[in-house]
């Protein structure tokens, strides 16, 4: 089954990097991109993704606020995975409390992102800070 992915980050160059990494995986499809939380909320309704890959720090509406509002949509099949610069246990807790299923630090995205998307697309939790030697699933 195809995993439909929406990328949300305010830097186009980061979205491009995420896209090249994710589209190398057979069966995964990047169905769209958004540059902030507000745009993401609109695109979720139109594109019906399975996984939203979400940055934390963005203009207009940050990722945490967007994640909370995504949960209110009641889409049980939709999962949120944060990919962020914030290598912080506190921020990771905030993200999970907001309803995210996964948390990956940008500096380690090359190592962790594919495994994280695979896990959250199967509704499993995946978290990995940069300092942690191993990701936990």
């Amino acid at each position: 089954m195809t995993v439909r992915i929406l990328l949300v980050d305010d830097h186009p160059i980061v979205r491009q990097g995420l896209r090249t990494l994710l589209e190398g995986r057979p069966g995964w499809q990047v169905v769209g991109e958004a540059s902030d939380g507000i745009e993401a909320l609109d695109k979720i309704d139109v594109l019906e993704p399975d996984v939203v890959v979400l940055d934390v720090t963005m203009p207009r509406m940050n990722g945490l606020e967007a994640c909370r509002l995504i949960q209110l949509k009641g889409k049980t099949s939709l999962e949120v995975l944060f990919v962020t610069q914030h290598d912080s246990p506190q921020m990771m807790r905030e993200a999970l409390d907001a309803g995210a299923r996964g948390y990956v630090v940008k500096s380690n995205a090359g190592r962790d992102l594919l495994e994280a998307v695979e896990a959250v697309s199967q509704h499993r939790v995946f978290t990995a800070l940069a300092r942690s030697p191993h990701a936990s699933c």
Partner: protein
Amino acid sequence: MKLRILLADDHEIVRRGLCSLLQKREGWEVCGEASDGREAVEMAKQLKPDVVIVDIGMPYLNGLDTTRQLLQHDPNFKVIVLTITDSDQVIREALDAGARGFVLKSDAARDLVAAVEALQSKRMFFTPRVNDLVLAGFLEKGHAISRTEPPDLPTLTAREREVTQLLAEGKSSKEVAVLLNLSTKTVETHRSNIMRKLSLHSIRDLVVYAIKNNIIQIQMPPQLRTVSETTVV
């Protein structure tokens, strides 16, 4: 002959995005990728790229000091600095370090190809805000862009700035010694000299100095702005 580009950024996804953008251009190739400043300097010496693109906020050796070391080794290196901030101080330091291009990361998809083209044609490229600052201050007044206080950096040597960054990133003197291939005693001497020159009294003071002078960069998360914890990026 192909234009050879070396990329230096600690985030693999950013490097992937940059690669994807640059390699679409016929006649351009990314000849190497470095994940920190020290690696970038070593790779540049070996690969002799036509253009080096360096992120400012890299571990071990930041982009500004990377630029300084590259140009000290070979003044013909053409360096584009990538940054998340366009503060006056960062712009001034990038210009002082000898960068010929200055591009905001948020605008990289739009500006980076133009920046590389400019350097290829022996011109410079700066994001529009830098051009405004240059016009407003640098050229008209015949000196550096206006500043509110004199820079602290010139009081440290290049080696001392390297040691400062590594200590501010949380490494011990022993770890710094291993990374820089020095004895622990030599690192301790550098550390004492740094503290004395800057009138600092603790590692906490050193970290604050490093942040204020763009030796390391921090980004505060949106929900934790009142919490003292910071994230080094």
